[in-house]
Each structure stands twice: as structure tokens, then as C-alpha cells.
């Protein structure tokens, strides 16, 4: 079995914490945005869609730098949050979670949007004729029917968050125990003369996490199809 050292555990657990928080915080925003994009036409929709997908195509170092400019202590939003709410992102694990959340957001939103688009809108009409106000229709019909897509999006987002490197290291650096995730730990270990074995162990862990996430996303997608056919 893998003989994982305490320092490596620290990186693994930090990665898990960062990815879990990033996914949980991003999910409500993801559902709201997926619903907006799936169901509404409005001025600037393609622009919003492009902005959401931007982290997927921008060099991660650019995203990280933009985060630093915005959410750093001297940044417009970061300065405000630090001063009035006491929330600091720069060089903290919370900043790593923010970077991971932003980077994984496009992957998180996509399956949610697809599953909302796949819902038969005539079911929502039926709910309305039975006396359900629009918000009740959303929570009793739309959301339950899109749940497998929502879960698949969360799994994919989580997998992406756990592997995020470029934006995180640019924004919050590579501080063991605070911002050093699996990826940045591997990066440091490869540059250390005797770090190969440790790096290898972390590589195996991250490969296992990624494969596990992809398999569960696939499983949720299959359930979605089944559910929509009423079995």
C-alpha cells in the first residue's frame, strides 16, 4: 500500500476541504445560473455565457492574477470584504477555495443546464394547473427532475477543483498547511532532489480521485435518463 507521510496527508486533506467548500458554495449559484441560461432569453445572455466559460479557455495564471487584483487585500472586492466582513482570501485556504470554485464553475454549470433543458416543460404546466405557484413548480418538479444533472455537475466541479493548480498558486501561492493543495505539493516535490517517491504517491492519489469522480458523474447521468423515463 501507499505509505503516505503526514505532510502529504496535510496536502490531501487540504485539497479535499478546498474542493468540498468550493463545490458546496458554487452549487446554488450554479443551479440558479443553469436555470437562467436554460429557460430565459435576455439581453446579454451570450455575453454572460461567455464569461462563465472564460476560466475554461483563459490561461489559469491569468484567472489567478485577475482574482488577485479583485479579491486581494488591495483589490476592489477583497479590500471591502476584509474591512467590513473580515473575510480574507489572499494567501489563505479560503482563497484557494475561491480560485477552485471559479475555475470549476463552467464544468459544474454545464450538466445542470443540460438536465434542466431536458425536462419536459409540459410537466411544469401540469403542475401549474394543479395549483403550484412558479417557485413551487421549481422546487417540486424542475429541481427533483434535474437532480441527477445537478449531482453530476457537482461531481465534475469537485474533480476539477481538486486538481486546480495554475490559478490557485498565482492567487494564494504555495504555503504548506494553508494553501498547498495536492497539485502544488506535487509541483514542489518534483523540484526537490529526493521528492520523486512522494510526488509519485500524490500522483496516484489524484489519479484515483479523478477516475472516481468521472465514474460517479457517469453513474448520475445514467440515473438521470432513467428517472426521466419514469422507471
Amino acid at each position, binding site marked *: 500500500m501507499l505509505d503516505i507521510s503526514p505532510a502529504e496527508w496535510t496536502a490531501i486533506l487540504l485539497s479535499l476541504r478546498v474542493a468540498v467548500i468550493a463545490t458546496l458554495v458554487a452549487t446554488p449559484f450554479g443551479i440558479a445560473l443553469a436555470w437562467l441560461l436554460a429557460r430565459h432569453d435576455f439581453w446579454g445572455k451570450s455575453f454572460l455565457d461567455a464569461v462563465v466559460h472564460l476560466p475554461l479557455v483563459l490561461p489559469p495564471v491569468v484567472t489567478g492574477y485577475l482574482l488577485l487584483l479583485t479579491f486581494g487585500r488591495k483589490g476592489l472586492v477583497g479590500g471591502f470584504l476584509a474591512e467590513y466582513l473580515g473575510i480574507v482570501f489572499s494567501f489563505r485556504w479560503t482563497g484557494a477555495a475561491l480560485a477552485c470554485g471559479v475555475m470549476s464553475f463552467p464544468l459544474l454549470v454545464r450538466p445542470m443546464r443540460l438536465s434542466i433543458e431536458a425536462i*419536459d416543460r409540459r410537466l411544469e404546466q401540469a*403542475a401549474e394547473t394543479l395549483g403550484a405557484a412558479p417557485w413551487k413548480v421549481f422546487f417540486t418538479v424542475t429541481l427533483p427532475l434535474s437532480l441527477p444533472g445537478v449531482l453530476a455537475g457537482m461531481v465534475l466541479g469537485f474533480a476539477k477543483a481538486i486538481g486546480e493548480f495554475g490559478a490557485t498558486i498565482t492567487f494564494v501561492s504555495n504555503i504548506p498547511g494553508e494553501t498547498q493543495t495536492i497539485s502544488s505539493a506535487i509541483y514542489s516535490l518534483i523540484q526537490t532532489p529526493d521528492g520523486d517517491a512522494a510526488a509519485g504517491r500524490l500522483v496516484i492519489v489524484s489519479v484515483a480521485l479523478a477516475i472516481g469522480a468521472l465514474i460517479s458523474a457517469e453513474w448520475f447521468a445514467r440515473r438521470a435518463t432513467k428517472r426521466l423515463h419514469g422507471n
Partner: protein
Amino acid sequence: MLRVDVEKQLGEFSLSASFASEGRVIGLFGASGAGKSSLVNMIAGLLRPDRGTIVIDGETVDDTAAGIHIPTYQRRIGYVFQDARLFPHLNVAQNLDYGRRMNSLAPDPAQHKRIVELLDIGALLDRRPGKLSGGERQRVALGRALLSKPRLLLLDEPLGALDEGRKLEILPYLVRLRDEANVPMVYVSHDVAELRQLATQIVMLKQGRVTSFGGVKVLT
């Protein structure tokens, strides 16, 4: 009971219909494309008339001149669609209970029992809609609409998707419903035989216009 006087332009098609009825079952008769479904969707509030008024049970639910348009969910109507539209993520019992929950009505076990027996769906309560036959689905859809305690029941070709054998299986339930459930109905169909058995009054639609109105004899 129901007063309709509406106009609606749908692409090339123009619908202009006016009738008032106290009948227990108003049969809306016409060929496909005559505007029957559009008319029913307007009564349900799913489609908004360009001009005119709709009054259900004394309540004005649409009046374009006064800017009134009561949303569907506040109209207290029941709607049975051609494709039953049962919720696939809920079992039959939960489907039946949906309208009651959405309207925050107190449970009414007596009514529940009566309707489940009337439609003969007691054996299906634990099943998912995907495991039901077309006829069973339609009976559950009827029950679901009735249990929301509507003041008007709209049925848009409820037998349209069923083969002849299944139609004959459902028709007696609809007759019982008419005689026992005490809810006025609007029944849309292009089938003369069906309407003869069920309707008490007929509104005949042709290319978006009402061409005759009266007793079942106008069907001849």
C-alpha cells in the same frame, strides 16, 4: 358557469370564440386545427387572449380591457391532457396528492377514497407512472385533477392517445365522473360518439369560429 368571449391571433390562424354555458359537460367539438386546444389553454390561463373576457363560476379570470389575467395556478381548475403528464419522479399516490399539497388543502380521506374507487386505481398507488399502461395513466391523471378540488375540469382529448379498446375501457369512468363527481367539465374531442355519450351541451368550432351551439343534437 363558464362564459368565454375571446380573440387570439396565432400566426396565420385567428381564433374568435364566444359562448356561455351552464351545462354540466360542455363538449368542444371540431376537427384538428379548429382551435379547440388553444381555447382550452386560454380557459386554463396557459395562453393569454389578445382581447376578451373569460369568466369561471362568476369570477373574471381574464379581462383584457381591465388588464385582468389570473395566473393558471390561482384559477382552481383541473386539466387532463391527452398525454397524462404524470410526474415521473413521484409514484401514483404522490401524484394524486400533489394538487392537495400545492393548494394547502386539508387531507380529505373520504373524497380520496371515493375517487380512487370511482376510477379503480387503488391497486396502482405504489407504482411509478413508467410502469402504468396508457389507460391506467389517464385514470390516474383524472384522479389527480379531481383531487385538487377544481371548480371546473378541462379535458383535452383525454382518450386521444388510446386505441379503441382502451377508449371503451375509460369511457364508463368518464360517464360515472359526470354523474357522481359534481364538477362541471369542458370536454374537447373530435369524436362524435364520445361527445354523444358524455356532453350535455355542444360548442362546435370550425377554423377558429363557433359555428353552432346547443344540445347534443347539433352533432348530427
